[in-house]
């Protein structure tokens, strides 16, 4: 659990947008995993199984409708300023991060989830397909659409 806590929390944070709600959801993920540990099949990676639980839980929460929290990004990602950067670089980096977080938050839930799992959490296409119970082609397609959306919104920050 210690090994997986940050990953699960990260997915929840990026999907739900607030640290408090993310912690609550992450805790629920581990409690569900604890109760359903008998269902865990050894042929899958534990991390993939946990991602699957976290993904379903987040999508369900988002689909429940009563919440559309701020996704302005000011707390969605931990921003650790580089100690060696100049103030100008720092400002640019800050702006870029804000734009990036906003762009991610504005993605549809399905696309955001795929891009988070792939580009932020580093899962393979196969692992994402397994966790979300999707066809490989669907994963590939959703990921590409998500990246194209992000590319458009982050155009001015690209070199």
């Amino acid at each position: 659990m210690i090994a997986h806590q940050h990953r699960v929390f990260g997915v929840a944070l990026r999907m739900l947008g607030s640290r408090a709600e993310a912690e609550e959801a992450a805790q629920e993920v581990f409690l569900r995993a604890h109760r359903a540990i008998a269902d865990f099949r050894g042929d899958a990676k534990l991390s993939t199984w946990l991602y699957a639980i976290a993904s379903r839980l987040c999508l369900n929460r988002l689909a429940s409708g009563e919440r559309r929290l701020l996704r302005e990004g000011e707390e969605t990602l931990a921003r650790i300023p580089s100690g060696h950067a100049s103030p100008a670089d720092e400002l640019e980096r800050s702006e870029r991060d804000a734009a990036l977080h906003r762009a991610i938050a504005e993605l549809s839930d399905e696309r955001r989830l795929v891009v988070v799992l792939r580009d932020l959490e580093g899962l393979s296409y196969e692992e994402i397909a397994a966790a979300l119970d999707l066809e490989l082609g669907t994963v590939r397609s959703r990921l590409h659409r998500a990246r194209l959306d992000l590319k458009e919104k982050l155009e001015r920050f690209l070199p």
Partner: protein
Amino acid sequence: MTCPDAREQLSALIDDALGAEERGAVEAHLATCAECRRELERLRDTVALLRAVEPARAPAGFVDRVLEAARPAPWPRRLVRALLLPWPVKLPVEAAAIVLVAVGVAYVFQATQGLQQARHLGSVQPMTTASDQAAPAPPSQDAAREAPPTPGAARAKQTARTLEGARQNKEQAPGQKALEKSASEKETPEKKGAPTSQAFSEAAQHKDADERRAKLDDASRDVAKRQANAPPATPAEPQVAGKLEESPARAERSQEAAAARARSSAAPASEPRVDTLQAPRPAATPPMATAFVPPDVSGRLAVANRDAALQDLARLLARLGGVEDRRFVGDEGPIIELTIPREAYPDLLRELAALGRWQLIREAPALPEKIRVVLRITS
């Protein structure tokens, strides 16, 4: 491969997720299409931006909180939760249940106590009458068993106890009745279970009452018979009665007392009893069990000089082989209880007639070997 087809594969190309054939085709197109190469670069930069995002870290203490939440609560807390939560629902229900049980227990207890009292009442209350009237105490089974043959202290103690019990009964009986009444009026759920005990209690009381009535009838007949045969010879308890009276009112009261005694007694009224006058006993300490057995013979001797008559009587007894058992002081004069052999009885009657005006009041149809005689000496 067209540009749209090639651009669809660019993400997979970046992720190295294409098969060799697909990859070859896309790379062949890119080699010829500067626009698609530029698109690939922009996409790569975007992915690089994404991957540069600092990974999120769970807040400090997250694992502990999860473990705390996953660990089952200590059993006392779980028990309390199970019993009380949600308390707005469970608390009133549980309180109502406790009250219900308490009421039920109280009701059953009262019903049982009533039952005991009903029995107790049957044996003790008539004693009150007897004691209140300072009449000769009746021989009841209990009294006969408990009372030693002679000691007066035990007798006094028992009388006190009897009075005490009677007082308690008097105090408790109305309360009990009221309680039973209120219980019967209440339409409570536990009433369904209660009628058994209540009915039992009532049945027991009725039964007791019936028994008492039957005994009373027997005793009344018995006593009436005895009184008719020997009205003046009612034995008395000196320390209670002090003296014997021969007035009709007194006889009537004695009869009532006897009836009450018979009611209280669990033994049939016709059962033989310990006879006060059969065995010589100190006059001051007749036990409770030695009451109301009429003598074989009783009579009244009217004389001019009582003292002289008593002396003559003493000499007469000595001559005839009789024994004076006890002597009381009555209203009209001394009362002598004596025992005399049957063979000397005719002589006794003759001599008594010589002493004064002799009036035979009672004589048993069959006289025993040792005849008990009660003489009332008047002037």
